């Protein structure tokens, strides 16, 4: 006979009530956990894809658009910037590293990015097979892109104009010379090539041929879409954006700032869900208060018996608190498991739509949510526990 066993036998006596109660708590916990996991998953995704880039230099336009297009492979670029200007920025002593990106074509929906191998280094993406490109029209495919497109080293493919679908550049086929290992970042979903490949593909094209801005290399001189910049020191954060903005064609965009803006926009919806979750948890707690109270009230004679048999008040209070804690634990574990399951499902669905997000590993947050669920249940059971402590054996058994 143990306290746990006794508490379990009390719970087992009203399975339907406690099933509902636990389900309610589980849903509350589930919603809270899902929100936290989703937020952290998105944050991780963004943080991962930001890859320590401090500043992006793009063509004049929306900074958000520049960040989305050049870092996260979403949205179209604002246009292109002249190569000389990009090089001038890269030579600035405050710049530790500058990686060019040129966007404009895709293969089977996966963006072709003209850049340097340093781009893959930003994401710690390493070659799985083959080698890096040494001349134009050689390409290295990201892990996901290679898998989906069935590309392996030696294969040829033709880029299509635009960021999905589009007219084929049949005259300038690419050859796959390398495939990357999965890195869990955006690189997995890209096909990388040399910047000059993009120029070569669009050589001789009319500037008006593309309907989407920035897709076409201008006739007058070489261009890149954006320049990913890492600062050499904190000074860079102060000076470089001003240097960039001073140029008439250039726009500076800070990934950190833009991501924060997105997060804030998403936050409104999350806020509503958060209140629903809190309401659910409060309802569950209310249910605990009432149902435990009713249960204790029905159990008065037995609890009185325990007192007569020598149990102290504290023992009864602990018994009821333990009962509440067990229910809270079951509800929270169930809720957390549901949340994980849902997120794992969401992860695979999101991946199919190209919006992968990174599910964080089990961690301190889960432990916190679990403890919060148990504490909530114990607090909700406190009135009943105190009621049990104050049961007067004489009054209960004297009536018999």
């Amino acid at each position: 006979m143990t306290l746990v066993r006794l508490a379990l036998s009390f719970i087992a006596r009203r399975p339907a009530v406690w099933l509902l109660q636990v389900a309610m708590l589980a849903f509350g916990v589930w919603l809270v956990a899902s929100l936290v996991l989703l937020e952290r998953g998105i944050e991780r995704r963004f943080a991962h894809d930001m890859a320590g880039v401090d500043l992006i230099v793009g063509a004049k336009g929306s900074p958000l658009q520049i960040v989305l297009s050049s870092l996260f492979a979403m949205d179209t670029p604002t246009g292109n910037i002249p190569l000389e200007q990009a090089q001038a920025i890269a030579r600035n002593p405050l710049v530790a590293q500058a990686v060019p990106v040129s966007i404009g074509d895709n293969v089977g929906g996966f963006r072709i990015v003209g850049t340097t191998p340093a781009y893959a280094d930003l994401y710690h993406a390493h070659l799985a097979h083959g080698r890096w490109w040494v001349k134009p029209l050689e390409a290295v495919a990201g892990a996901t892109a290679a898998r989906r497109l069935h590309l392996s080293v030696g294969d040829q493919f033709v880029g299509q104009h635009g960021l999905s679908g589009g007219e084929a550049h049949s005259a300038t086929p690419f050859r796959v010379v390398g495939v990357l290992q999965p890195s869990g970042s955006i690189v997995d979903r890209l096909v990388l090539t040399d910047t000059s490949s993009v120029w070569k593909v669009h050589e001789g094209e009319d500037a008006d041929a593309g309907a989407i801005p920035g897709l076409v290399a201008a006739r007058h001189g070489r261009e890149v879409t954006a320049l990913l910049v890492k600062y050499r020191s904190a000074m860079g954060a102060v000076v470089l954006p001003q240097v960039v903005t001073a140029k008439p064609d250039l726009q500076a965009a800070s990934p950190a700032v833009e991501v924060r803006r997105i997060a804030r926009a998403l936050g409104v919806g999350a806020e509503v869900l958060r209140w629903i979750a809190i309401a659910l948890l409060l309802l569950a707690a209310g249910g605990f208060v009432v149902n435990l109270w009713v249960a204790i009230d029905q159990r008065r004679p037995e609890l009185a018996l325990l007192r007569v048999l020598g149990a102290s008040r504290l023992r009864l209070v602990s018994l009821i608190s333990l009962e509440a804690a067990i229910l809270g634990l079951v509800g929270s574990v169930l809720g957390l498991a549901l949340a994980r399951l849902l997120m794992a499902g969401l992860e695979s669905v999101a991946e199919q739509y190209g919006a992968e997000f990174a599910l964080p590993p089990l961690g301190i947050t889960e432990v916190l949510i679990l403890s919060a669920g148990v504490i909530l249940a114990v607090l909700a059971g406190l009135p009943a526990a105190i009621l049990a402590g104050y049961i007067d054996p004489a009054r209960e058994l004297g009536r018999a």
Partner: protein
Amino acid sequence: MEAQANINADGSEPCALAVDGLVAGYAGRPVARLDRLRIGNGEAGLLLGPSGSGKTTLLLAMAGLAERISGNVLVAGVAPYSLSRHALDRFRGQTIGFVFQNVHLVAGLTLLQNVLLAAFATGVRQDPARARELIERLGVGAAADQRAEKLSRGQAQRAAIARALLLRPRLILADEPTSSLDDTACAAVAEVLRRSAHEEGAALLIATHDHRLRPHFSTIATVGTPT
């Protein structure tokens, strides 16, 4: 333990129960009175009174669970109400065994678990071998692992007796153990209680309105009304 430390001035063990002028009640309201009762160690006595006369209140007051408004009670030489709250809980658990009229067992637990509940509630070591032995002796050994709600009334009552005896108490207080039983069953229950209490060396006090029990007992006290 303070309960065991009590020895009379002449070195003999104090008697299991000594009651003098006890007025018991709830919240300062007197309910029943018991002028004088002595039950020696291992002896048995009867507390007679009609239904609603306050027998249960008197029993509970002897165990420190109902209020002692006036008078004196010594259980194994100890005045329960002189103990601290915690010490009283322990004292009650270890020195007094209760058998109630209706509330016998905790549903959801097996018969054996219900017997062990006495040790669990008091917080002392649980001895399943002793519990089984008691259950066997009371003739419900076969039902030891059945759930309480599956037991017959008689089985449940025997389990309750086993539980009352588990910790080798000095005194068993039984509240209306024979009401609503036919004559044969009544005599049988009284006999089981007496015999098992005697075997365990515990004194026995049965509170009842059941006059059929009278012939079985020599020590008989009657519940009085408080003045």
